[in-house]
């Protein structure tokens, strides 16, 4: 399985170089803006999202057919891909954190824990997003899954915006229980968030394995 992860990282070599260049570029942008930490978690997201390209690379090379003739089973192949995804997210988070520190040192700002918590939120969000999209990618390939991706994220977003607008327009009051629940969730986010991420990750992984086991290659 280590071999599969090595394969993924070698395939990303070129993109990873690009990320270092983007980081340097970003550093100079950041020190010239009012809100230098605003985009730090964006780096994590950008790096993590390359996981999807890995599926495209494997498809292009028809790698999976070959990999399954090796001493690997289908579960191992999915495991390796999820591990690569987590490794990419972690490296993205680490890169963002380092950049945050460098920027604050350079600007002689005081570092607050909030910057790092934000990186944590960004990483959690991208893991959840990738966990929802990966089973679709395995089922229908990268190209078609892209449409699902759009539908999954843009459509609910638009519905929420619409509801929000309607609520504002008609001056409806948000019921207290929703407010209370939201307040409670926000207070305990440090525990709810990791648990949610873990749960989503596990569910996504088992769905992916069962889809992949049924697939004819």
């Amino acid at each position, binding site marked *: 399985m280590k071999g599969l992860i090595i394969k993924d990282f070698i*395939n990303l070599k070129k993109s990873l170089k690009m990320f270092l260049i983007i980081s340097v570029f970003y550093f100079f942008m950041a020190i010239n803006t009012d809100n230098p930490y605003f985009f730090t978690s964006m780096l994590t997201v950008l790096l993590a999202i390359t996981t999807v390209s890995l599926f495209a690379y494997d498809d292009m090379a028809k790698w999976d057919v*070959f990999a399954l003739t090796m*001493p690997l089973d289908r579960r191992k192949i999915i495991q390796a891909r999820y591990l690569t995804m987590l490794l990419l997210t972690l490296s993205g988070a680490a890169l963002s954190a380092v950049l945050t520190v460098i920027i604050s040192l350079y600007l002689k700002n005081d570092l607050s824990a909030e910057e790092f918590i934000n990186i944590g939120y960004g990483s959690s969000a991208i893991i959840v997003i990738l966990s929802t999209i990966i089973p679709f990618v395995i089922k229908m390939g990268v190209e078609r899954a892209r449409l699902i991706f759009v539908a999954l994220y843009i459509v609910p977003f638009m519905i929420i915006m619409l509801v929000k607008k309607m609520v504002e327009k008609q001056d409806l009051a948000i019921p207290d229980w929703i407010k209370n629940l939201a307040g409670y969730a926000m207070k305990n986010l440090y525990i709810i968030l990791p648990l949610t991420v873990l749960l989503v990750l596990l569910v996504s992984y088992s769905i992916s394995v069962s889809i992949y086991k049924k697939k004819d290659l």
Partner: protein
Amino acid sequence: MLNKDYKTTVKDAIAIRNLTKRYKDFTLDNISFNVPKGTIMGFVGENGAGKTTTIKAILNLIHTDAGEITVLGYDSKRLPPEVKAKIGVVLDGSNIHDNLTARDTNLIMKNIYPNWDESCFMKYLNRFKLPEKKTIKEFSRGMKMKLSISIALSHNSQLLILDEPTSGLDPMVRDEILDIFLEFIQNEEHTILLSSHIISDIEKIADYVTFIHEGRIVFSESKDNLIYQYGLLHCRKEEVNDIDKAYIAGIRESSFGAEVMIRNRDEFQRKYKGYNLDKTSLEEIMLFISRGRR
């Protein structure tokens, strides 16, 4: 149909019984054949006859509708990893990412195959004159094939499963590759299943030949037996009607007369004393069966 009742024994590196796989427009229909250990089995048939589907079923890459396959004595659906590690596979294409190099491939395989033999792999790269640092994108088709074969041979494989390893290659490269296979088979424990539509390659190296046509096995036989069992009859068109249809594998007619491919040659000659049969070749037998009239 010959060989429907093969007994599965451990003497066979691969044993397929009653394998069926249905697609919308194609069916692999109840096929059975064995690949005896220590031999080269040529698996022939035109494009689309079912060769790749069969190979994918052997490798458990597709789900089958019926039938059983054993590979090196194990159910193909439940091959232990250490047994899989002893199987070298070459598929139609290199199946390795374009932006990797031969050296990257070595690093990856070293971390996948517990029995990876790095020095052996380097030896093959040298022998095939494959550059270590060039990306596979820059490789010719022949070079890609040679890389795949180097991988297949570098983890102490006992069984090679090769899907069209010589197609699209020039005769010199094909010959070089076939020589490697003949070297591999010197060890009695080693076995090769080689699919190809290039019959001359099969004629050159195979001990056994399995012929698949439209999803069915037409014959699975030792090559020498096969050439001995068939014979070509030249006769007048009217004479064809006098021959028992059971002996006819295929008929080709021209303005000069008819050519009939006769099976069960000995029996035929005992029954029809007046006819002389000519020797034939693997290629002719297959052409008569797949293209001739019956």
